[in-house]
């Protein structure tokens, strides 16, 4: 799970007195911290890059590297052009102990030379990004980088799940519409803007701006960042200690703490981590606001895993609230928490013994997950560099409400946990109590959630899977799986540190924090939102749902699949079932795959290739483990057990490459016709792998199928030839096309039904385009009836859609 919810008001806590000394430099060099594990040899990395550059004929720069247990050096290399990063272009290099290098996976661009020259200044690009972001308040200094941008990665229409409407809706803020560059690669500015103020809330966005025309090429939500606070300083008298905590979800647990010189204890684990945390390091300042330096003149920071909390205060007849930080220290006993759910109402309990409970789960879980990656895979922390991590508990979302989420943030190298809506909280508008939501969650600090969030960090520093489409689903599933493995690992017997136990997880993410689990890896479709197998069209789902088939793959790989059709774990794609390889082997196979074989834009088919390659490397060609990977992927409709190609079916591209709604080829809307009410559109599908290309059309998702619950499943009429006339209902209307040659193969898609009659004269014609033309480039339209999607928010997208609907209805250009 990730969240974009953060505080909108905070103030820094009072600065702690600084204590300098030689000991700080020792801390900074890690004398008291764990030694780095398997640090990649710089020469080997350099040699691998050099070899790959020659082989691929491309400029390459290392982004991340690691040494695997077989002593091979793995390098995730970015492609550059004249020193500028080529967006999305990477290669995963494998260099063995003998120095032989191969390119294991690649998304390199064959001809990255950008057209023309970058005539847009950085300042202009930032201004364009600011305008697109629509910030109303102040922002932090922007980050901007001149990159080479392949036009094929141009942004697209994005959907977002609208829980109020219970359907997917157009995510306007993050969608990009318009003509694409005609050149394969262009110069572009990647601009990141971060704002944290009371009018914008917390927002962090990345924009790619064409450096010749100023056009927006891509919009992505970046990871969230927080305002720094002054962490506590340590000195030579502050030594590691082992305390005890009463956790909410895992009983009494040991805690790695620090005993200070005055005898009190704080939640800083000096035994894990060898480098300072970047967020805390940059904010380590004295009372005057000056950086605190060690005797060598370098900025210092506490090294180790650290846990803190937000605290909240509210007051006044016209209720207002503020937030600040509190570091868990000055505990006289090194016993923490009361094991109970945090009492959220009224404010003020965050630093109490009850408030410590969430910190116990977070601090202990952080250490368990750290040890999981270190002891099982030889990985030194999330980034394999030993960078210290931070956990913050009792985080509230925007506007001050607690929310049902937790998240990882790469910028801060930290995890952030909220307390959920299941229990009474503080209404930030009135100061009074909120109404508990029985469907909400308690504090989201169970061990599987902690493992899930930290794994997002591991993914960021290995494969870098883009958090969108199929790669986003694989990203999410990787976190669910590893979170479950961490859950199992937390139950290991003493001394059994180097393997993942074969018991200890229920394969239900977040099962302990609410009445029902967030997700089931055994039967993902039981949540009503996630599919149980892959299909063409899965990329339209939110990544937390498109992860479903991959979650099931992990369960099958580890635990096997039944042949009993009545079992919730049964798969019709593998009716004979399969034997699993167990947790430990499954975890090793996937860690190898994710860290050594996947590129950021990997899809399910690529995951299969990576899984087979990893299992082959670990257990040998033709081994039962390799077959198990094949079987498990076949069970989720990705490939077959014997590599025999299956029938593949997709909705046809209905909007030509380079057209307004398919600017980069294979864009989200490329296979979605835009249809005006009262008109008919002809649907078509592509079938490969069979001479029989006949299909059956159905409106909506398949019966009993949860694959597209978000789209309106209204009728309309579709005939055998695929001529579809929608009902007079706005929005995305799902439909299914099934291959008659193999009815197990199907695709789901949607048509976007709009009200073309923008001028409300009961006729849809070219004049309707004029009625919305004024919306071009603007933000808002108050007259909802003029909106083609019956929404008060009308802008350039509506204008483009009416143009497209007209052409689909009547032809012409």
């Amino acid at each position: 799970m990730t969240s974009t919810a953060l505080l909108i008001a905070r103030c820094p806590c009072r600065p702690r007195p600084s204590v300098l000394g030689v000991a700080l430099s020792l801390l900074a060099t890690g004398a008291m911290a764990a030694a780095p594990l398997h640090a990649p040899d710089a020469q080997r990395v350099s040699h691998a890059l050099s070899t790959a550059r020659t082989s691929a004929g491309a400029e390459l720069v290392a982004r991340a590297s690691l040494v695997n247990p077989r002593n091979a050096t793995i390098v995730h290399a970015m492609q550059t052009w004249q020193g500028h990063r080529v967006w999305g272009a990477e290669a995963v290099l494998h260099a063995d102990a003998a120095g032989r290098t191969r390119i294991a996976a690649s998304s390199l661009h064959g001809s990255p030379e950008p057209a023309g020259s970058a005539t847009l200044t950085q300042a202009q690009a930032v201004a364009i990004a600011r305008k697109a972001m629509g910030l109303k308040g102040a922002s932090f200094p922007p980050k901007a980088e001149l990159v080479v941008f392949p036009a094929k990665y141009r942004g697209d229409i994005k959907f977002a799940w609208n829980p109020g409407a219970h359907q997917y809706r157009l995510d306007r803020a993050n969608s990009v519409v318009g003509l694409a560059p005609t050149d394969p690669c262009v110069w572009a500015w990647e601009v990141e803007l971060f704002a944290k103020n009371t009018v914008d809330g917390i927002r962090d966005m990345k924009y790619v701006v064409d450096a010749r025309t100023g056009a927006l090429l891509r919009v992505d939500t970046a990871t969230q960042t927080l305002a720094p606070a002054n962490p506590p300083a340590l000195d030579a008298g502050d030594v590691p200690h082992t305390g005890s905590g009463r956790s909410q979800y895992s009983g009494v647990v040991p805690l790695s703490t620090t005993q200070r010189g005055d005898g009190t204890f704080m939640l800083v684990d000096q035994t894990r981590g060898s480098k300072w945390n970047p967020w805390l390091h940059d904010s380590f300042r004295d009372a005057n606001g000056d950086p605190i330096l060690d005797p060598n003149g370098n900025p210092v920071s506490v090294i180790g895993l650290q846990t803190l909390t937000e605290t909240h205060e509210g007051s006044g007849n016209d209720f207002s609230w503020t937030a600040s930080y509190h570091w868990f220290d000055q505990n006289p006993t090194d016993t923490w928490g009361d094991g109970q759910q945090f009492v959220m109402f009224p404010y003020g309990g965050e630093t109490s013994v009850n408030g410590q409970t969430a910190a116990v789960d977070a601090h202990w879980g952080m250490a368990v997950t750290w040890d999981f990656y270190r002891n099982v895979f030889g990985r030194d922390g999330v980034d394999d560099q030993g960078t210290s991590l931070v956990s913050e508990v009792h985080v509230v979302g925007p506007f001050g409400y607690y929310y049902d989420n937790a998240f990882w943030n790469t910028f801060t190298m930290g995890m952030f946990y909220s307390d959920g809506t299941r229990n009474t909280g503080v209404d930030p508008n009135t100061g009074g109590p909120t109404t508990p939501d029985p469907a909400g969650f308690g504090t989201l600090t169970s061990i599987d959630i902690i493992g899930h969030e930290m794994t997002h960090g591991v993914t960021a520093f290995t494969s870098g899977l883009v958090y969108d489409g199929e790669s986003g689903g694989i990203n999410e599933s990787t976190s669910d799986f590893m979170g479950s493995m961490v859950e199992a690992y937390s139950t290991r017997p003493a001394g059994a540190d180097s393997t993942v136990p074969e018991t200890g997880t229920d394969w239900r993410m977040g099962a302990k924090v609410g009445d029902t689990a967030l997700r089931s890896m055994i039967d993902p479709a039981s949540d009503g939102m996630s599919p149980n197998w892959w299909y063409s069209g899965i990329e339209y789902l939110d990544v937390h749902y498109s992860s479903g088939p991959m979650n099931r793959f992990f369960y099958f790989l580890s635990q096997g699949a039944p042949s009993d059709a009545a079992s919730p774990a049964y798969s019709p794609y593998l009716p004979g079932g399969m034997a699993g390889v167990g947790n430990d082997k499954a975890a090793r196979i996937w860690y190898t795959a994710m860290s050594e074989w996947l590129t950021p834009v990997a899809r399910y088919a690529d995951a299969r290739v990576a899984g087979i390659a990893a299992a082959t490397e670990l257990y040998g060609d033709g081994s039962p483990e390799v077959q198990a990977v094949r079987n498990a992927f076949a069970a989720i409709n990705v490939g077959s057990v014997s590599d025999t190609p299956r029938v593949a079916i997709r909705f046809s591209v209905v909007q030509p490459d380079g057209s307004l709604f398919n600017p980069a080829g294979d864009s989200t809307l490329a296979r979605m016709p835009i249809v005006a009410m009262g008109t008919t559109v002809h649907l078509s599908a592509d079938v490969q792998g069979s001479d029989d290309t006949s299909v059956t059309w159905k409106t909506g998702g398949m019966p009993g199928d949860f694959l597209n619950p978000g789209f309106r499943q209204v009728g309309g009429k579709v005939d055998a030839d695929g001529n579809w006339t929608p009902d007079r209902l706005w929005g995305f209307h799902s439909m299914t096309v099934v291959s008659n040659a193999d009815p197990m193969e199907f695709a789901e898609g949607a048509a976007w039904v709009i009200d073309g009659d923008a001028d409300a004269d009961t006729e849809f014609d070219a004049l309707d385009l004029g009625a919305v033309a004024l919306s071009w480039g603007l933000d808002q339209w108050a007259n909802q009836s003029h909106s083609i999607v019956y929404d008060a928010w009308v802008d350039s997208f509506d204008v483009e859609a009416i143009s497209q609907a007209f052409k689909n209805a009547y032809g012409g250009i």
Partner: protein
Amino acid sequence: MNTKLLTTLALLAALSGCGGGDSTPVQSPPAPAPVPTATPTTLAYTDPTSSGWRLVRDAASTPTRLVLDLVGPAGTPTRGVGFNLRRGMGLAFGKFDNGGYAHDTGVFQLKGTNSNFESYAGTDADPVLFVSAPLKSGDVLSTGIFQKDRTNAPKDSAAPLVQVVVTLADFAKVDPAAVNASTDPYGLHVVKARIIPADIGGMNFILTTDVIKKARMVDVAVDTGTITATP
């Protein structure tokens, strides 16, 4: 009153003046365009004489392919226009070289600015909002062309704003007898037309109620000339 009606009345007046007698000129509805008895092979177009919104013959026209320009009153700036043109059964809508049913003359193309972002001196013209196609009935061509950048000035309507093409029907596919029997087989009429006026209120990226009112298109009447189809 369009040219066609004036011509008819003048003709009736002339006829009533012949042969003596006390007959009074009869005000009758405008007669449809003359219907040739043989299958026509050429078209001629007589421009309307009005000075308002009208379709006029473009010099690129040929005897088999009429290119008609939409022009407006001189000195009247607009930000776009859309209209529906109904043809008689004996006519067809032609296409331009790019396959479109209408041609953008470039009046509403705006160089160098785009309302999506800050002004930037680009070298390519910004595309307009422009569509054209026959509606489902087939006998009505709907086209609209609208300026995109609201912060730019409206354009004078005196120059041709958009062009359409009219040809004879394909008589290999259309029954000439049915054509002759149909109502106004060579008639051309604009059945609906609207413009985006110059005044759309103060431009702001947050629309106000006042701006919304001004943004509504304004109905206009577009005069058409007379088509003569001859064998």
